[in-house]
């Protein structure tokens, strides 16, 4: 799978990823990550993109955690059914 060691590759069942494909996917990720979007540069090292991606995923999951926590406390004093339609409308707008 290593493009720099083509002649020695013995993994016949594994598709080889080209530099272009890799660069495209890394660039796609780069655009999804706020930290890297801000840098405005196209030349972010792939390893840095992956590192930032890991950090970003972890921070998103922490946010989901915190929001679950917040919701669990909010639900303590709420009756949900009657307001659901209103929420849905505001969510989908």
């Amino acid at each position: 799978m290593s493009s720099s060691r083509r002649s020695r590759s013995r993994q016949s069942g594994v598709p080889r990823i080209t530099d272009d494909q890799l660069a495209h996917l890394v660039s796609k990720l780069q655009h999804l990550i706020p930290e890297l979007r801000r840098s405005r540069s196209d030349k972010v090292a792939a390893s840095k993109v992956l590192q930032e991606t890991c950090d970003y995923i972890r921070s998103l999951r922490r946010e989901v955690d915190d929001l679950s926590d917040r919701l669990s406390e909010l639900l303590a004093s709420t009756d949900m059914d009657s307001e659901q339609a209103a929420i849905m409308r505001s969510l989908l707008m």
Partner: protein
Amino acid sequence: MNKYNPPRMNPSSLRSRFATRFLRSLSEINAQKPTASSSSPTEIFRRYRRIKVAADKSMAYSVRSRRTWSRAMLWKLRTRPCGRRSVKTSTIVRKTRHEKQNKNTTTATTTGEDGVVSGVEADELRELVPGGEAMDLYNLLDETAHYIKCLTTQVQVMKKIADFYSP
């Protein structure tokens, strides 16, 4: 110049599928609360766990089996025992992790345009994306992009709901 292509999946339809399912789960969780102790720390913690699972479940079911990561997450959710112990379940699911200790044999090292992608970062990413252990680098990056989009949708919807119910 690398032009970023807009996502194939319409974010608002994923958002509405997720929101519908999640709201339904929330009202079910809400209906189950024992009125006497609904504000006790234990109850709140239990609700927190259920809400967390509901958030992941709603997202996985909204994506269904279209993605490797969602299939992996659905499998994990279906095989977890009802109730607590979600930590132990994820340990069972990741029993293959010890096989990944040999980073040199299982992880590819590829040289991209922007530099070397080391196996270490890819492995770290594999642990974060559901089902990542079995993905090759190309699929891993592709799945990660979609997973991130879904996570951000999840966060956006949950935020809106929380803001709605905040005093």
